[in-house]
């Protein structure tokens, strides 16, 4: 990559901790070992996204993918680590620059009904932010909203309607229009097509791809649906229990996954096929992030686990050009 990446995450970490109640604080003062029950939702994630790239982020529920997306979008502050915007640490920017950078990263949510204010008309939902941020004078707001709606394939005649008057697919388009209205460079899509019917989902995926062409957008595309991610993204990162376990160009990853978890996940994903198949499931369940296993978090379920896996956590290492994987097996058997 020649230019500095548009977004660079360096050891990004998010801990959620519960405050201790009075009794526990008292017990702790008396010397009792009271755990503050912190959940490490995201642990030390390094990831750089090049301008114009689509990075897919895949994982099962609880793996921290949404939390990571929210930190990138600036909705959640990271507990540790740095987030660099076009090569510059966000925390070191002047308030005005930071404000500008935050505006350039927008988010599209999963459930449009929960993320659109039911009491506002579409004209206000989409038009409010660009007016407030001074991108568009208030007088021209309506024309601007109409143009934005056209861009996402909605009829500007719907300007005066409320969210409940739209179908699910149309609401998702409104959510996208709202994100686009502030002229972002990056869209963080968190399960943005998960709640839609298959035929509508295809329409929205096509819309995302068309917008990418037209506006040269960069995406962080978060999804549990491997088919969608394989279709849309250039590179794919697979997360397990707060960490990226494998990162590779999408075709390579889906053809030849390296990490045992990535392998298992790809094997289990049902595909449309004329052949019946027998399922051979991964043992066990995803461990609780409250109490993650020592060493490699996947070792209790891994078919190749060795003693080292429960003792030492594998680092995410390059195993080939542009391919990264966090597994001890790569060292014993060679890449």
């Amino acid at each position, binding site marked *: 990559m020649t230019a500095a990446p548009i977004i660079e995450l360096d050891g990004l970490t998010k801990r959620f901790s519960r405050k201790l109640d009075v009794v526990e604080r008292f017990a702790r003062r008396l010397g009792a070992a009271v755990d503050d029950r912190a959940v490490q939702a995201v642990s030390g994630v390094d990831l750089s996204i090049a301008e114009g790239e689509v990075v897919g982020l895949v994982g099962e529920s609880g793996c921290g993918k949404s939390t990571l997306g929210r930190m990138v979008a600036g909705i959640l502050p990271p507990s540790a680590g740095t987030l660099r915007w076009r090569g510059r640490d966000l925390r070191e920017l002047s308030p005005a620059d930071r404000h500008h950078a935050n505006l350039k990263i927008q988010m599209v949510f999963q459930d449009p009904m929960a993320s659109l204010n039911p009491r506002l008309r579409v004209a206000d939902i989409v038009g409010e932010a660009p007016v407030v941020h001074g991108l568009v004078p208030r007088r021209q707001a309506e024309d601007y909203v109409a143009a934005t709606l056209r861009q996402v394939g909605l009829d500007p005649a719907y300007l005066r309607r409320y969210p409940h008057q739209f179908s699910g697919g149309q609401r998702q388009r409104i959510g996208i229009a709202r994100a686009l209205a502030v002229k972002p460079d990056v869209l963080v899509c968190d399960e943005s097509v998960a709640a839609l019917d298959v035929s509508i989902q295809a329409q929205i995926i096509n819309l995302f791809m068309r917008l990418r062409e037209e506006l040269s957008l960069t995406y962080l595309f978060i999804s549990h649906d491997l088919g969608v991610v394989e279709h849309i993204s250039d590179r794919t990162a697979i997360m397990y229990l707060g960490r990226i376990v494998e990162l590779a160009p999408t075709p390579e990853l889906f053809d030849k996954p390296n990490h045992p978890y990535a392998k298992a996940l790809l094997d289990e994903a*049902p*595909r449309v096929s004329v052949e019946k198949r027998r399922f051979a499931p991964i043992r066990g369940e995803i461990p609780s992030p409250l109490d993650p296993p020592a060493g490699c978090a996947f070792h209790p379920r891994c078919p190749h686990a060795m003693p080292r896996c429960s003792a030492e956590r594998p680092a995410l290492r390059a195993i080939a050009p542009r391919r990264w994987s966090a597994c001890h097996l790569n060292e014993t058997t060679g890449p």
Partner: protein
Amino acid sequence: MTEPLLRVDGLKTHFLTRAGTVKAVDGVDLRLDRGEILGLVGESGSGKSVTGQSILGLVDPPGRVVGGRVLFQGEDLVGAGEKRLRAIRGRRIAMIFQDPMMTLNPVLSIGTQMVEAVRAHEAVSRAEAWERSRRALARVGIASPDERLASYPHQFSGGMRQRVAIAIALLHSPDLIIADEPTTALDVTIQAQILFEVQKLCHETGTALIWVTHDLAVVSALADRVAVMYAGRVVETGTVAEIIGAPRHPYTRGLLESVPSRNRRGVPLRSIPGMTPSVLDLPEGCAFRPRCDRPTAACTTMPELAGERDDRAWRCWNPVAAEVRGDAA
């Protein structure tokens, strides 16, 4: 042909609302043999779930089965009284819901609920019912069943709860299980575990299964036959190989082409234009006509479900040519 386990003839379930009559299910025919797995596929509002509920007489007012027959081993369940239905539900036909908390009572232990379910249909001792519950839990792959029987639903993860719901459905070795999107809310690896158990159980016990879902990928891996529903009607039916490999109805083909697949990476998906119609206000004739890419004058009258065989049929005047799709990877 021998009498199938289940035959649904012209089933109609309508909801009488203030806004008008919602014809959620409007003339559905299905048949299912012993040990067979049927995938009932459709998008939201297609009537697939209501069809499943209607078979068991579980439709609540204002919904009502207004026509058709549900012949279960020759007995019509549509006219059957509540007492008769209660004897059949759970014992002969079981249902698994998308949300296992619809099945489980949050304030009773799993053991209490399972023992009750056993004794509701059979006069057995508590100890025997407990033993049978233990075996059912072990069958769906739950470790240390004794401990689990003493726990409450909130102590289980989502995947475990769904397994318990499946174990309850299996208690009486029913002839038929109707599963309504039971794995939709679950993660891929957990879904694979459940599909694995279900496949094994149908194989071992000869239980027939209706798997209601919107997910073509799951159906293609699990089912023997598929019925595709659109706006309250079955629009195409056939074996998995026929439906996935050589769809004849334009809607089925459109659905398949909407699924992102490896061979079309980066290429725009051939999506179906428009959206699923409101069943309150259906177009005259074929309901898919406004979204279809090949409508003709004939489409203003409703086509019959017809084709090569009874169980290989489509509801379309201009079916897609019977070419084998090459990209069903």
